């Protein structure tokens, strides 16, 4: 990607992200009363993260097998209620160990 295309996309990205935070912070001072609108806002973060994570997580490392090991570890650790940092590190570690095992098997 050339620099011009990058900076144009970066500008659109940064400005949109800023406006999404700034406009309501400046304009709205009242609570949202409409339950359905509020529920929609409550749900959006989780549906976004879910769609972003699966199945993309399976293609985030060198092999699907190591990525799947990472994904399963992430699910188990999260289910056990470990904090974000522990889950992130555990996920990386599981993917790394399985990648090592794969490399070793190939030799």
């Amino acid at each position, binding site marked *: 990607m050339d620099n011009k295309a990058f900076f144009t*996309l970066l500008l659109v990205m940064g400005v949109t*992200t800023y406006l*999404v935070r700034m406009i309501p912070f400046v304009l709205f001072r009242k609570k949202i009363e409409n339950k359905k609108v509020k529920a929609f806002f409550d*749900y959006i973060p989780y*549906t976004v993260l*879910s769609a972003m994570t699966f199945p993309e997580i399976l293609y985030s490392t060198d092999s699907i097998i190591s990525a799947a090991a990472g994904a399963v570890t992430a699910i188990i650790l999260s289910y056990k209620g470990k904090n974000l940092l522990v889950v992130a590190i555990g996920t990386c570690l599981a993917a*790394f160990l399985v990648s090592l095992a794969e490399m070793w098997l190939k030799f």
Partner: protein
Amino acid sequence: MSFKQGFNYGLAIGLGYLSVSFSFGIMAVNSGLTWWQTVLISIANLTSAGQVAGVGIMAASGGLVEMAVAQLIINLRYSLMAISLSQKTDSSMTLPARLVDSFFITDEIFGVASAQKSVGFKCMTGLAVLPVAGWTLGTLLGALLGNVLPSIVTSSLSIGIYGMFVAIVLPVCKKSKVITIISVLSVMMSVVFRYVPLLHEKVASGFAIIICAVISALIGVFITSDEEGEKEAVNG
């Protein structure tokens, strides 16, 4: 809360951001961006999910509309946090102060700030210092070391940010049936977009995420009764 108090509260967030953005830095460089482009993205946005989607759009040489709509939908939650936080602000939160501090509204900074009785300009700005520093530094380190570390290490580290996403969603699913249902729905739709050849070729990944997320959130609104909605709101 003073600037110094806010600054101290920011330490834990900053340390967390350091490691998450390290993973983001590696991921972005692996997608074909340079180290300085990656750092600029972090400085200009200060958000994890939006940046991951943004890098995906950049890597695919996506369109400007796709980028704007993707950031709008993915970061829509910040609007709600901004509205909520806005009700706790004191008189020091003037218009210029709001223009500055709104930039720092992230899930974690909002979480700490909204737990205070009232939020002033000094406290909110102090709270943001270390998270911004951690986010930028972590991205820089990840982007630079991404080129130095062997591929087995960087490829293993770039899965970390997805692990964090799982860790955000799953604990909430344990508490809320509706969120479990719509998260599974969202994943199922995302799988369809990924593996049905025609959809995978024709629909850009940024748009696919938006479509999956909005439809499943709307289904969530549709299946939520009023009392449940209140309960969800308290939990969420």
